[in-house]
């Protein structure tokens, strides 16, 4: 069966697209600069931050749609750079700038759209969470752990562990830290402890059996082991020690030329 293709127009340019693609995927392939904050290729589209808005034009008029989530269909006419689109993104950026006035990521993105100040009041000038949900989704959708989630509603919405107590299920993998676009989630390794500060959770770091260095939490190690059917050799070593042990072992393999081991 041949793959279904749809012909669409983006900013006047014709584009051939495949069924199931999103506008964002097509736009990026075409080299168009569409900003995103809540989008991550490893996760399902979420369509919440609204900075990726583009305009879909049809007989009924122009509608702003989130390009990260909007599926292509035959004959779609899309604008990614019109005055309407820019204005829609500007309003969103003004609002985000009021929420997180000190976030560099937000300030830079806003400045790109000519928004250097916001007419709206900031409740908490130190706020850096934009509620994009990437951390929550990485933890739940990708890792299947769901240590964190949303609580409250509307402007009071926040991300955290249940009742903001130390999480029993967090494995301290730090995926949330990695995917957070604004650097809101804080973590620090101190001695034998990983502190997931934003989640009020502390985890024990496992020691490498060779060098004693601590880079993974015990829980994360167990989580990874639990996913594997067999036990991997050297899974209690840090990558550096694993490398050196491998090198050492390889050095003991007899060479083709002679059959004595190197000294």
């Amino acid at each position: 069966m041949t793959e279904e293709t749809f012909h669409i127009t983006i900013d006047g340019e014709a584009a051939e697209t495949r069924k199931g693609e999103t506008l964002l995927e097509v736009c990026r392939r075409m080299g168009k600069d569409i900003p995103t904050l809540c989008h991550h290729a490893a996760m399902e589209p979420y369509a919440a931050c609204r900075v990726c808005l583009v305009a879909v034009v049809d007989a009924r008029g122009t509608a702003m749609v989130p390009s990260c989530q909007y599926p292509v269909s035959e004959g779609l006419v899309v604008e990614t750079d019109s005055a309407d689109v820019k204005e829609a993104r500007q309003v969103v950026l003004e609002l985000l700038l009021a929420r997180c006035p000190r976030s560099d990521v937000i300030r830079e993105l806003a400045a790109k759209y000519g928004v250097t100040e916001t007419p709206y009041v900031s409740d908490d000038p130190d706020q850096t969470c934009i509620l994009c949900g990437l951390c929550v989704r990485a933890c739940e959708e990708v890792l299947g752990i769901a240590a964190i989630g949303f609580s409250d509603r509307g402007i009071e919405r926040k991300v955290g562990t249940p009742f903001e107590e130390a999480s029993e299920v967090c494995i301290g993998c730090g995926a949330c830290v990695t995917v957070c676009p604004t650097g809101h989630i804080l973590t620090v390794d101190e001695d034998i402890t990983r502190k997931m500060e934003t989640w009020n959770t502390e985890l024990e770091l496992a020691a490498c059996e060779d060098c004693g260095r601590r880079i993974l939490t015990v829980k994360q190690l167990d989580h990874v082991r639990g996913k594997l059917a067999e036990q991997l050799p050297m899974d209690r070593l840090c990558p550096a020690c694993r490398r050196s042990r491998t090198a050492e072992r390889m050095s003991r393999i007899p060479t083709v030329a002679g059959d004595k081991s190197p000294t």
Partner: protein
Amino acid sequence: MIAPVATKVTSAAELAELRETLVAAGKQYVKTLAVCGGTGCQAYGCQQVIEAFAAELKKQGLDDTVRLRPTGCHGFCERGPLAVIQPAGIFYQQIQLEDVPEVVAKTLAGDEVVERLLYKLPDTKETIEKEHDVPFYAHQQRLVFGANGMIDPTSIEEYIAYGGYAALAKVLSGMSPEAVIAEVLASGIRGRGGGGFPTGKKWEICRGVPGDRKYIVCNADEGDPGAYMDRSILEGNPHSVLEGMLIGAYAVGSDEGYIYVRTEYPLAVKNILVAIDQAREIGFLGENILGGAFSFDVHVSRGAGAFVCGEETALIASIEGRLGTPSAKPPYPAEKGLWGKPTNINNVETWANIPLILSRGSKWFSGIGTENSKGTKVFSLVGKINNTGLVEVPMGITLREIVYDIGGGIPDGRKFKAVQTGGPSGGVIPEELLDLPIDFDALTAAGAMMGSGGMIVMDDRTCMVDVARYFMNFLREESCGKCTPCREGIKNMLEILTRICDGKGEGEDLDRLQKLAAGIKAGALCGLGNTAPNPVLSTLKYFRDEYETHVKDKRCPAGVCTALITLEVVEDKCKACGRCVKVCPTDAISGGKKKVPARIDQEKCIHCRACFETCPFDAITIT
């Protein structure tokens, strides 16, 4: 009460036979006393009245000849507890416990009317005997809601005797699913929940999507402030909703349905659960309904009362046990809904219309209403209106007829100012549009919307900036917080409105409101956000001068915004009775005794209005 049916009904013929038996059994009763047991009348104590009637009928030996029927809501909530005595149609209102023996002795045992319980016309004081002659009812067309007064909602037998499940039998006796959809399409009915999407079209799309499993959902997450029509239909006629869902399920090819209802509606939950049990027992829910191949069953899913869960995708998430937040469309629920399966969602009132359309025909239905809005609509008429209650009117009726002919106008001789329709997603309609024919498109064109049918009437003492602020505050509380424009935008619109009401409005604030409104409308993720700015946009459209007076002159013309009012004594009217002096909490009033008129010290006055409310001579003005 008709004796419950014990056996299963396995064919249309058996149903017809059962109906005849039930109707014949009902003939033992010479009279029927239908007492409203809706939630409004419950608040007036109708439960005790119903119990008193039961005891009194027994005492006077009438329980074999007079049927006492506790019913759902009759609509005229302003006048509860209500009762109608059939077949004469005598309408009693504001019945108290002590009236019960007299009503039984005079009107039920005899044919005498208890004059003082009749409705009196407010102007002429003339009494009206029959329900259908009371102006509140006379101008209505109660197709969906009328049955509420004719059946006990907890009795499937009464529903059947009234003609219930006949539409289902008709559909299952030879109509193809396509024919059912064609009939619903031809009727022109549009969704009563808010959007006004053609119901038949929705069914057609869902039927056309391939899938081994499809779901039917009844959206009973009614959440607009002041709206309670869906509640009253579920409470008063739950079987009509089930019958509609059964027909819809057959049409789209579904065998499982959900009713999503808020826990704050305990009576609605109770009555629908009773109805489901009865329908299962008799065989209208379950396998091989009426002896055919069609099977269908329903679950009740209770929501925790989040307004956003009325939005289809959030509702689906909530039924699935996830956080009730919307997700972007497309895909639409018809393609990918509950548990990823094609799902057809309609609201309570839409479902309740379906049996009528199928039994009386699309031609009959499409004969009612306007060109693009067919049938009737139930509105909840609340606010500054004499006859608070639920009214069902044909589409195309004017607002003037609803407010004045049915609603009886504005209390206390005040002047009509505007009506808010469509709840927090809707907008206001000003006096100059009182002759607007009410239908989906006319309301949208006027900047309001049909919504689920809330109608809040406002008089000249209502401040439109304050109204907008009220709705934005509601939406701020109810926004789920997922998308930026709705979460942050509504918060900021509310802050601007609060500032304006507090007398701190700035020159650019109105432009800021406009810009934010446009940004939220265009950029929000779901229907809640897309329509959230409507209360502000419509009040700005029709009452911009009122906003400007707040911002520029720092004055609230309606005298509502506390920071912007001045209370003064009109010396000519002041009788120096001293009452205002006594109630003033800040001792701001001097004089007011020994024939010296009272005087308010503006420095000390905190605008609490205690003097204004207390003055018996209207000598205190608010400007």
